[in-house]
């Protein structure tokens, strides 16, 4: 869904750029609370994994492909603030080094594929965690469903931006139908990849998955408190 230069007019691109700068600024502050010696090394690897997975376009319909966006995955693995930082680095490198996603559209791409997918993905994930049983086995499923919703949400926000500042005169309702329709299919692939990736880490080291911490804390309350004592 990398938006190239020219799809949105200059004022809209400047506005989305400003939103991206504020969002990354907030994420830089918030990430300090999420990152510690255990999770920080994983955050860089999650960004690298999302970059690699974004290269893997899968067919979604005849003559159309899609790839993982990864905002929901990043938020569940390393936390929403750190997740947005990871996504922003991916889009910056893709834009400057690989000419993927316009330079004037970098803010738009960080907003759509980073901010929207992280916010929607994390919100849906947390909402699901409240209603499903507090079991580790539910974490990958919640993450997958959150990922499924996050992709059409990003497509819908693109349509909103296009209604405001699109450079071609289009009937917005048909654009919305087409964009959301195809990205529901992309979302299915996103859900499968997110489920598998989160499930793999949960299987070996659930404590490295940010979104699993609440489940682990409730399960291991006494054990954890005994290890956090300083012994002073």
């Amino acid at each position, binding site marked *: 869904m990398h938006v190239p230069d020219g799809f949105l007019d200059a004022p809209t691109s400047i506005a989305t750029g400003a939103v991206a700068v504020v969002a990354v600024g907030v994420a830089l502050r918030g990430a300090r609370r999420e990152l510690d010696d255990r999770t920080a090394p994983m955050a860089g690897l999650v960004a*690298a994994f999302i970059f690699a997975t974004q290269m893997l376009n899968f067919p979604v319909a005849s003559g159309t492909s899609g790839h993982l966006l990864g905002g929901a995955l990043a938020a569940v693995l390393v936390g929403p603030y750190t997740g947005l930082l990871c996504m922003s680095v991916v889009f*910056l490198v893709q834009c400057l080094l690989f000419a993927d996603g316009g330079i004037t559209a970098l803010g738009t791409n960080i907003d759509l594929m980073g901010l929207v997918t992280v916010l929607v993905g994390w919100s849906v994930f947390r909402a699901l965690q409240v209603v499903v049983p507090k079991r580790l086995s539910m974490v990958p499923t919640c993450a997958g469903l959150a990922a499924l919703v996050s992709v059409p949400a990003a497509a819908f926000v693109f349509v909103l931006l296009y209604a405001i500042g699109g450079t071609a005169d289009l009937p917005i309702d048909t654009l919305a139908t087409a964009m959301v329709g195809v990205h529901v299919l992309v979302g299915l692939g996103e859900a499968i990849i997110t489920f598998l990736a989160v499930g793999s880490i949960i299987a070996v080291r659930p404590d490295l998955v940010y979104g699993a911490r609440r489940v682990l804390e409730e399960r291991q309350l006494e054990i954890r408190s005994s290890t956090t004592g300083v012994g002073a």
Partner: protein
Amino acid sequence: MTATSSKVSVKVVAMGVFVVALILAGVVSFYAASSPDGLNRVAADKGFSDTEKDHHAADGPFAGYGTSFVDNERLSGGLAGVVGVLVVLSLSGGLTLALRRRRDAATDVPTDVPTDVPTDVEVADLDRSA
């Protein structure tokens, strides 16, 4: 912790994720679908593809996920993917390592946790000064 004894070390998990990322970007990416993605397809169908402008970085050595000085298609894409993984890892890894809460090796207590939450050490200091 009872669970820790059988746990895979963080190093092993990290190495696993790194190797998987390298294989996906360096090898598997060759087999990715080449048809236009959802947005490009919709842009073509709705007739606004031509509003796309040339990319400012289109002449770069790795533009379009290929390596300009490598002719072999498989090597060209694979090398671009590996370079991308390493660059993304360096940037985001450096950023998150710089932002993390450092732990004092001697006490294993975060040294720069938010100031509104007193750490055990701070509470102990307060007790001593009282």
